[in-house]
């Protein structure tokens, strides 16, 4: 076992305690890398340079490896999330039922491409390969809630409704 190093978190934000607890649970070993990054993303919404450096140093993993893992897995985001995130499901069942058209409508309405955030940081249009709600296809996930029964005509209204409910 290599000697453990004490590394101070990037700030005195209390959320680092949660991240630290995850790393401690795995004895600060390199195997904790993915679980720790999950913990950072859950607490802060995304992985920034400071958090990657902190986790890498604390677990004694080369920064290049931490960055490699963070970019390999789609679930991790290196950019801060928008206020509202709309994930249009592109799973097979949703695709067969025309989810690409939903995405087109939203893309036009918010004037952003898929994967982008509006300039005011309020809305992000994303896509996923399958959210597992095939029974309700086509669906989108808005801020963690599934919105179903979408058609090109009602999609904008339904998404806006959900966003207004939430804010």
């Amino acid at each position, binding site marked *: 076992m290599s000697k453990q190093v004490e590394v101070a978190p990037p700030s005195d934000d209390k959320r680092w305690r949660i991240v630290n607890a995850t790393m401690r649970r795995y004895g600060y070993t*390199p*195997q*904790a*890398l*993915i*679980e720790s*990054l*999950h913990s950072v993303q859950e607490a802060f919404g995304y992985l920034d340079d400071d958090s990657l450096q902190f986790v890498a140093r604390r677990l004694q*993993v080369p920064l290049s*490896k931490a960055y*490699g*893992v963070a970019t*390999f*897995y*789609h*679930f*991790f985001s290196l950019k801060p999330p928008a206020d509202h995130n709309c994930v249009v499901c*592109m*799973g*097979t*069942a949703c*695709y*067969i*039922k025309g989810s690409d058209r939903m995405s087109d409508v939203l893309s036009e309405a918010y004037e952003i491409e898929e994967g982008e955030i509006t300039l005011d940081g309020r809305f992000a249009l994303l896509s*996923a*390969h*399958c*959210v*597992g*709600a*095939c*029974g*309700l*296809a086509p*669906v989108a996930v808005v801020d963690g*809630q*599934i919105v*179903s029964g979408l058609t090109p005509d009602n999609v904008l209204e339904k998404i806006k409704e959900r966003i207004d409910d939430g804010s």
Partner: protein
Amino acid sequence: MDRDAFESIVQKNRDEEAAYAHHVNICMSSGCIASGSDAVKKQIEADAKARDLTKTCRITGVGCLGLCGSGPILAVEPTNTLYQKVKPEDSDDILDHLDGGIVERIELRQDNPFFQRQERVVLANAGKINPDEIESAIGHGAYAGLLKAVLDMTPEDVIKTLTQSGLRGRGGAGYPTGLKWSTVAKARSDVKYVICNGDEGDPGAFMDRSIMESDPHLVLEGMAIAAYAVGATEGYIYIRAEYGLGIKRLKRAIRQAEKLGVLGKNIFGSPFSFSVQLRLGAGAFVCGEETALIASIEGHRGNPRPRPPYPAELGLWGQPTLINNVETLANIAAIIDKGGEWFANIGTEKSNGTKVFALSGKVNRVGLIEVPMGITLREIIEDIGGGIPDGYAFKAVQTGGPSGGCIPAEHLDTPVDYESLRDLGTIMGSGGMVIMDETSSMVSVARYFMEFSMNESCGKCIPCRVGTAQMIDILNRFMNNTATLADIDLLEDLCDMVSHTSLCGLGQSAPNPVISTLRYFREEYLDRLAPAPDPV
């Protein structure tokens, strides 16, 4: 906990359940929650309280009742009534009819073939038990198989029973489970691991998520029996981070099982100990491949490595490791409980037991079904699924996701078993079954899956990394009507090369959607060739 203590828990819960005159079970799986089952449950609970029914009518949030497309689904016992698309305002009517009669406007008839044609082994308790309470699961038979294995059988007996059952891996490839277990059991090492592969990545598949949400203890029990048989003491469940509800229920299930002593040290007072941890995937399809999954648990990028050596010899942290899919493990308890012969009698000669499918796409009844192997595709689509909506004609059924293929109408009478599906150019796969009607373009479907494989290729081996991108380019030419006849030859050459030279299953099977659509729907490719230039 010993046998007597366990039996008394079983009895106590059965008595408790029998003490209620009525049971209202509301589906609290992801699908129905998205349709609003939470609000329905709250309303019925409030109304039951107002009517002073809390001592006679038990209201339970249960796992998946199957017909996800018509949720929220609600079941009333003992009148054996099912309701569909229930809204909070239906609450009073439902409570009015507890003793008999039926609220016709929301009735879901069970003489409907959707229910009649199914045979439930894996999903036997989904929709009956409360997945958040271990006592509820035990009352319905959970951990009885583990008790029998640990106290009454040797590890060799367990493997023998499993081999006799003929169970094959439900992750898609169909490798005999008994053989896999005996390989790990024979491996010499003091430390061995059992991994449950819950990285259900195929788009259009939600079987494993439903099993983990509806009956988490079934998966834990299967893992514990596997660990006993192969000599492992630690287990991991690798589950997609996107499956929030499944993660929550599994975590709670593990905690409850350890507290009760059916997991942990000296299970049922025997020398056998086994503990389970959860590991979250992070959205990489390739991690469904076993060597990539192991790399991911170890904290690395999910790159696969060449096999052999197989994980059975050299797996997690270099130790012999058994990896089984969720549904495979969910079959184990019933096999131990009822015997290998019982299981072998379900299904066909070479494909035993049942298979859970996620039926979706252009079909009237969408949901989760469990059918005996050997049922025909036509029975699934026309009887269980109720045919194609809106008067359109059936065109193809896609199985096996990005690793599978599309089956046209002329092969609908094929029985569903590993070999028959392979002969048709597709695979059983993990259980996604997407129905397409005449409005679906098969070239676009092939392109869709190829784009998926291209995005999910880990990039380690060149045939997969470059080959999938090249195939996308060619398929785009068909989509834009700029392809030539030579592109079909080129596409076929690439399919051959990528499938034979890729390192892991992702690349090896990535061409399947293209191969199968070229085989059955070649004219759709030909229709999209560039128009011939005008003769000068």
